[in-house]
């Protein structure tokens, strides 16, 4: 039984990755699982310079999900290269860096640095963070600006470039086609949906930023629909995410067209879920007499 999948030129031992911003640099969940079992780890959103992120409160629990407004808190790429990379580079799973910027120049400069890192085989270009004032999602919600970032980064990045898409758009398939046209090797979706929470007693917003990104099972049907739409619109592989809590959820995304999936918010509830999903996938394939997990991808029977 073969769980291996391919994204562009990159082979993954299985299609289960952890999503950016939900497991730090992998180390945060290393007590709970053997990280080398994972297909890959997409590390915390990284920027050129240190960012303190948004003010507290940054989180609100919502029905079957949560809002966050962390705002890309991270210590910058220099800290990543000097302090974190040496600790995680030999983990025996693909380490993918989630790349963010306020300007195209920042995306390019950061990507140039990462292109030189031998043990970073791919980047996830984040043009969909809803929690920053400049850049982030602003790039990902129109075709011309998404194209401009991807075009600029493609010129300086020779390895696998995954572009993470925002669901906060009229037609996500158009954006996917636009970034494919500029050389993206894969698209990952969905980032969080822009949402809001209000305290009725105080009449104040719950989050310091008023709005935040919604994640968790509440968004799964939307994510599944968007993965299916994008799968039918592009030729490059799709990485699906949005509310995946178990193997059945993961399988649904693959049937809808995802070549791989990312587990995000579920890690906050139980960081062992990615391993449970890998086991569940094997069990499903055995039950359905599948030789390769690739037989699942886009196998929706309409």
């Amino acid at each position, binding site marked *: 039984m073969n769980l291996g999948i391919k994204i562009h030129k990159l082979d993954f031992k299985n299609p289960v990755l952890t999503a950016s911003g939900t497991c730090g640099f992998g180390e*945060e969940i290393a007590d709970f699982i053997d990280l080398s079992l994972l297909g890959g780890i997409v590390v915390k959103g990284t920027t050129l310079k240190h960012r*303190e992120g948004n003010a507290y409160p940054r989180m609100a629990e919502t029905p079957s999900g949560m809002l966050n407004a962390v705002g890309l808190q991270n210590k910058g790429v220099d800290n990543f290269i000097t302090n974190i990379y040496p600790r995680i580079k030999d983990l025996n799973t693909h380490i993918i860096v989630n790349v963010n910027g306020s300007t195209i120049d920042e995306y390019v400069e950061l990507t140039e640095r990462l292109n030189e890192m031998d043990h970073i085989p791919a980047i996830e270009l984040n043009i969909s963070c809803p929690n920053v004032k400049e850049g982030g999602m602003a790039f990902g919600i129109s075709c011309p600006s998404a194209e401009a970032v991807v075009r600029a980064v493609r010129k300086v990045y020779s390895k696998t470039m995954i572009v993470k898409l925002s669901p906060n758009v009229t037609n996500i398939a158009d954006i996917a086609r636009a970034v494919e046209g500029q050389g993206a090797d894969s698209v990952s979706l969905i980032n969080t949906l822009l949402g809001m929470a209000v305290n009725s007693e105080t009449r104040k917003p719950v989050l310091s930023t008023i709005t935040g990104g919604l994640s968790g099972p509440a968004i799964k049907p939307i994510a599944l629909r968007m993965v299916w739409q994008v799968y039918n619109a592009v030729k490059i592989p799709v990485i699906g995410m949005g509310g995946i809590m178990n193997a059945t959820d993961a399988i649904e995304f693959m049937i809808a067209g995802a070549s791989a999936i990312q587990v995000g918010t579920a890690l*906050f509830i139980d960081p062992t879920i990615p391993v449970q999903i890998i086991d569940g996938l094997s069990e499903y394939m055995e039950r359905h007499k599948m030789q390769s997990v690739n037989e699942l991808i886009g196998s929706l029977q309409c």
Partner: protein
Amino acid sequence: MCMKKTVTDFLLLENKQLNKDNFRLILQSPHPVSDLFPGQFINVEIKDAAEIFLRRPFSILDVDYEQQTISLLVKILGRGSKKLTESKAGQTISAIFPLGKSFTLPDKTDRILLIGGGSGVAPMLFLAKICGLDPGQINVLIGARSASDHIDVSAYQQFGQFYFATEDGSLGEKGYVTNHPVFSGELNQFSKIYTCGPDLMMKSIGRRAIAENIFCEVSLENMMACGFGACLCCVEDTKTGHKCVCTDGPVFNVNDLKW
């Protein structure tokens, strides 16, 4: 050696209602609970509760190392804690533990003051029990709205001198803990102050400790999702930038905070 963090299925041995809003849950772990200290917490799953998605963090009230049990003080604050207090003995409860950093244990010569407000009394009782000082060196000040909001602490009174405050004067001194003579008097008779409770209470304690240059640690309870440093939601804006309350805390020295 530090215990590894795990997702553990505990057996609920006992769920006892202590007063109107407070319950004590005794959870038995299948593994040893050797290295658990006051201030640390566990993040508990709330099962079968519509719409409740995240775990709920609780400070540790007590540990029985031989029986491998952890006691929690659960106060009903919302739907999550309410659902948890409806749990029955014999039930399995999933929790992630151990989480967070504990209070700094006192030195042999210290004279310490522990101040607990509301459910913040839990880590104070645990600290009084295991800090290793003689009862004469340990002073515990507990505040609540009224006598009926206080939990029975008689099992812990052998470990130190206890003082009580209530807003309505129905038990101990009338007023807040900060109005109690043991706090409002000669505070520098104490070499270390530890506190856990409402933010405003801890702030006024912390500010006076700073002013009088007394060692003071506080336990914060910012809203969190994961409890193990992954989500970055529970940050406190400290003098050295945003720190995760779950991993850099929940215990902080007041001098590190922007109080």
